[in-house]
């Protein structure tokens, strides 16, 4: 069981000089008042436009190193099933939950035990074996398909979050760069998306995106124009061999350009959330660097981002592939995550593995409950969301991508048939689930990667 978490307020400190000097603090220290004021006026202006037709949100939570398989799958199927031991903490959310059995990710079968199963988790493709050159996931991740659809509707197209920095080095043992094990979101075959690792910075980014400083808007656009022109100039100068990075930078600059343009034009959307981002929810700068607290703060950020409709798509990694994170903060656990997952059917290791699995599910439940408490119009944010939870391999000891541990919670605005344990035929494509989720998201597609159909029974 997780130790009792300290109340957040216990370690909230006033803004220190140090935090100001660190940089971003300074940029945000002053505009609170202005921001609050503009929030109020804009909210009243926009009331006429508000609609009860709340948008659908989608998140994917990735857990490294698989699960203890004999404790994961519920025994019975259908609506009248009982949660398995590992899933116990989801009891209150059972009606909102979909447990899926026998999905697999064929693309990640070959290669190595971890990297292909991480970068391929949301792409359902086989990534190139590479230490760097010719790194390629050969597809794009399903969250990015969703973001391509909804990105124009919100200030931020999608959020990519994590806890562990990109793992250092290349794995010469198996011949993959560890970049692969540190990313699940890919906006294109050669573009893994960098993740934000600091909850406070996530908040600041959400805030900046939804509360533009009027005074600097016009200037910032001038500045970005200059930068874009420089980038175009370089692109011509550099010849054809390696324009890709410059293109990526151009796109990156254009995306804020576009956002500023929208903000200058007075907003982009017809739908307005009931809730505006509140500066008091900003995580402290000096928060202790403890894993469980940091995970919960990140999950808080997902909830805020969804509640305020700053973005509708989010991915989160509890850890990188092969994470050796020491879980001894859990009573009864002494080892690192990866080492424990190689349990070799040793009873003590299996017991510890199970405790680590259960802790992750508790965090999932924490996010779901939080979303379920967020009212919006007739329902809750959870009702209007689809929160995927899963790992790229089933049993950490054998690394196989058959019968993956996969859950979905929230009905995506009544479109997902939650409250069931659905068991499919052996080796049903995981992509069939993603195809269904994308369809429920409204992404105007019913296929994804190697999907053959939408999972029967998953949609209402």
């Amino acid at each position, binding site marked *: 069981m997780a130790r009792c978490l300290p109340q957040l307020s216990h370690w909230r400190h006033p803004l220190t000089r140090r935090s100001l000097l660190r940089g971003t603090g300074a940029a945000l220290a002053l505009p609170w008042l202005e921001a609050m004021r503009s929030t109020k006026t804009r909210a009243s202006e926009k009331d006429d436009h508000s609609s009860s037709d709340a948008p659908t949100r989608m998140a994917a939570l990735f857990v490294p190193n698989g699960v203890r398989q004999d404790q994961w799958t519920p025994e019975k199927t259908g609506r009248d099933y009982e949660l398995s031991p590992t899933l116990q903490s989801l009891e209150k959310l059972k009606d909102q939950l979909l447990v899926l059995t026998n999905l697999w990710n064929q693309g990640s079968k070959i290669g190595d035990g971890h990297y292909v199963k991480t970068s391929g988790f949301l792409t359902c493709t086989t990534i190139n074996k590479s230490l760097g050159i010719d790194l390629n996931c050969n597809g794009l991740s399903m969250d990015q398909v969703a973001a391509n659809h909804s990105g124009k509707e919100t200030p931020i197209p999608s959020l990519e979050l994590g806890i562990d920095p990109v793992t250092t080095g290349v794995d010469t043992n198996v011949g993959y760069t560890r970049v692969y094990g540190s990313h699940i979101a890919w906006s294109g075959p050669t573009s893994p998306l960098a993740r934000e690792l*600091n909850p406070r910075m996530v908040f600041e980014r959400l805030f900046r995106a939804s509360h533009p400083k009027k005074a600097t808007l016009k200037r910032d656009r001038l500045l970005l124009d200059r930068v874009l022109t420089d980038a175009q100039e370089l692109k011509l100068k550099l010849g054809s061999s390696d324009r890709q990075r410059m293109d990526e930078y151009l796109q990156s600059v254009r995306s804020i350009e576009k956002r500023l343009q929208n903000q200058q034009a007075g907003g982009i959307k017809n739908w307005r959330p009931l809730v505006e981002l509140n500066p008091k929810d900003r995580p402290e700068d000096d928060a202790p660097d403890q894993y469980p607290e940091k995970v919960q703060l990140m999950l808080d950020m997902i909830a805020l981002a969804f509640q305020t409709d700053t973005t509708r798509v989010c991915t989160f990694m509890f850890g990188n592939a092969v994470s050796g994170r020491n879980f001894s903060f859990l009573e009864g656990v002494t080892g690192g995550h990866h080492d424990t997952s190689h349990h070799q059917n040793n009873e003590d290791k299996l017991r510890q593995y199970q405790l680590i699995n259960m802790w992750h599910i508790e965090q999932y439940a924490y996010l779901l409950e939080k979303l379920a408490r967020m009212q919006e119009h007739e329902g809750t944010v959870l009702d209007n969301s689809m929160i995927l939870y899963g790992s790229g391999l089933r049993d950490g000891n054998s690394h196989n991508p058959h019968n993956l541990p996969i859950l979905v919670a929230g009905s995506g605005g009544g479109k997902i048939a939650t409250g069931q344990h659905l068991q499919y035929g052996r080796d049903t494509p995981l992509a069939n689930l993603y195809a269904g989720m994308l369809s429920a998201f409204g992404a105007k597609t019913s296929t994804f990667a190697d999907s053959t159909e939408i999972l029967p029974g998953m949609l209402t």
Partner: protein
Amino acid sequence: MRSRSPKFASTILLATLVGMITQPQSARADEDAVMSDAAVVAFLRDHCLECHNAQEAESGLDLSTFSQAADVRNSVTAWAKIAARVGERQMPPVGSSMPETETRAQFVRWIHNTLSKQLCDDGITAGQPVIRRMNRTEYANTVRDLLGIPINAGHALPNDGAGGEGFDNAAETLFISPIYAEKYLQAAKSAIGHALKDPADRKRIIVASPNEERTPNQAARLVLSNFLSRAFRRPVSGSEIDEYAALFDQAFAVDDSYDSAVEFALVAAMVSPKFIFLYEQPSKPGEQTLVSHHEMASRLSYFLWASMPDQELMQLADQEKLHDVDVLTTQVKRMLRSEVDSRGLRRDSKVRGFASSFIEQWLGTRALGREFKPDTSVAPRYDSELEGGMKYEPIFFFEDLLSDNRSLLNLIDSDFTYVNRRLASHYGVRGEFREQPKRVELKKSDRRGGLLGMGAVLAVSSLPHRTSPVLRGKWILDTMLGTPPPPPPADVPALNEAPSASGEFTSLRKQMEAHRSDPQCASCHNMMDPLGFGLENYDVLGSYRTQNRGKPIDTSGTLPDGTQFDGSDELKLWLLKRKDQFVRNLTRKILGYSLGRSLTGEDSCAIDSIVETLAKDNYHTQTLIVEIVKSVPFRYKQVAPPTN
């Protein structure tokens, strides 16, 4: 998707595996007997074809069609791998027909000679011109040096993954996600904002203000021509100054403040790709060209400082002196300098930018406190000062080698190291120490010296709660010798090293012996396990111990070639016998770091010649750096020629 010419793709293929050629160049000398093609065919038939034949092609390798040396040309990667596996006695597997030791050596030598002939006889060729963004560390250092203020402007940027030789400055893995432009904008605003607050710093940046003699626009031009050439690390053209002056005018027109309009133009320069990217003019395709003088200044400074060129380098570039090898040598020595103060402490030095980025990534010690955190049950007194001491020990040690031009072999064994107060007591080393690491002479009884005596190395090659001889053995093979063992076969359960439920720990050695009785496991574990057991006198955090859980520790072992050794001292002697292989691997790593890219087959020819020079020069560290800087891959660029 990126399309690459077939020619380029095959170069890449070479890149990945030619690194596995691990034998010293000197072995190419003609004093050794050379195998004939027929003898190679016979070797393959007697020792390899049982599994690597047309039908089974174990591990995808079919050697049945080989008939002559020219065949190697078509599968350089495979042959480099064969040399490594056979050379390390991982192949043929235990229980199959074994070659005589001398025959084995001849076979490996034949492969090296053949590969080297195929790749190097046409001369050493250069790689592509540089184009990559600065990584997070380089960005922070560059902003610090550009603005002259001690801030970490990179703290909000995403951190970078590694590619190629394992470093986060590899062009191929320096991606740009949509999040970057916004991060750069925020970081630049904040950094410039801070710099302009302090009057002295401000004066250095805003070098001119409007007065009776000059208009605001004229003053801004003076500021910009000074700032832009430093930010872009090259002379700027008149039209570039015009462009940024126009930006100043636009801002000045809206808001009548000179300072804020100048600040605005400077922020723009720092978000421009001309600042963010390190890039070089492309050469004519297929034509090997010296990098320009200013490009050379940046190659040097990002290699040895992980930051922008200083004034002296820029001046030398302006004077077009950076093609002169003597000038380069003098500059390298200057750049590697790190001062020691009167208390014997190494002051802040720019070369630390290289020492820390390189050594932490090469050794994997960056993981300490990140991916690797020791369990409190085995490390109850682990705290930030100890962690700091552990992390900085290899960095300061390497900085010492660089600055004082000591032998690279100190990395294998040395009579000094660097410790702070906590690490000194952790090691039981006597002396007066404070929080900052300080050089200390080691006595034999200290049982330290070299990388393998360092706590950080011993920790990151352990599990959080106990040591792992397998991981430590693998660390030596991979990190020090450049011959990573292959991953365990998928259908073999991993070795159960855990103590039994009753806590009996003596079984570890026995368990591993049992494990090695499986020939599939034995071919690699016969090497890894004894090497790792040689370090068992060091616990998870590298404290010296003579017993574990009440039982005496047995550190003896026999390597596949019959070498017997006991404990870390004899292990280091064994490594010293393989110094050529060690130095070759280190050269490869530093060359890869210096070029910021994956190495190619052609680069390994440069490595050959550098290693040869080093051996003649007693492995002096500065010689290695100077030779890298003087090498063709470092001084030249070449856009791949068009195909067909």
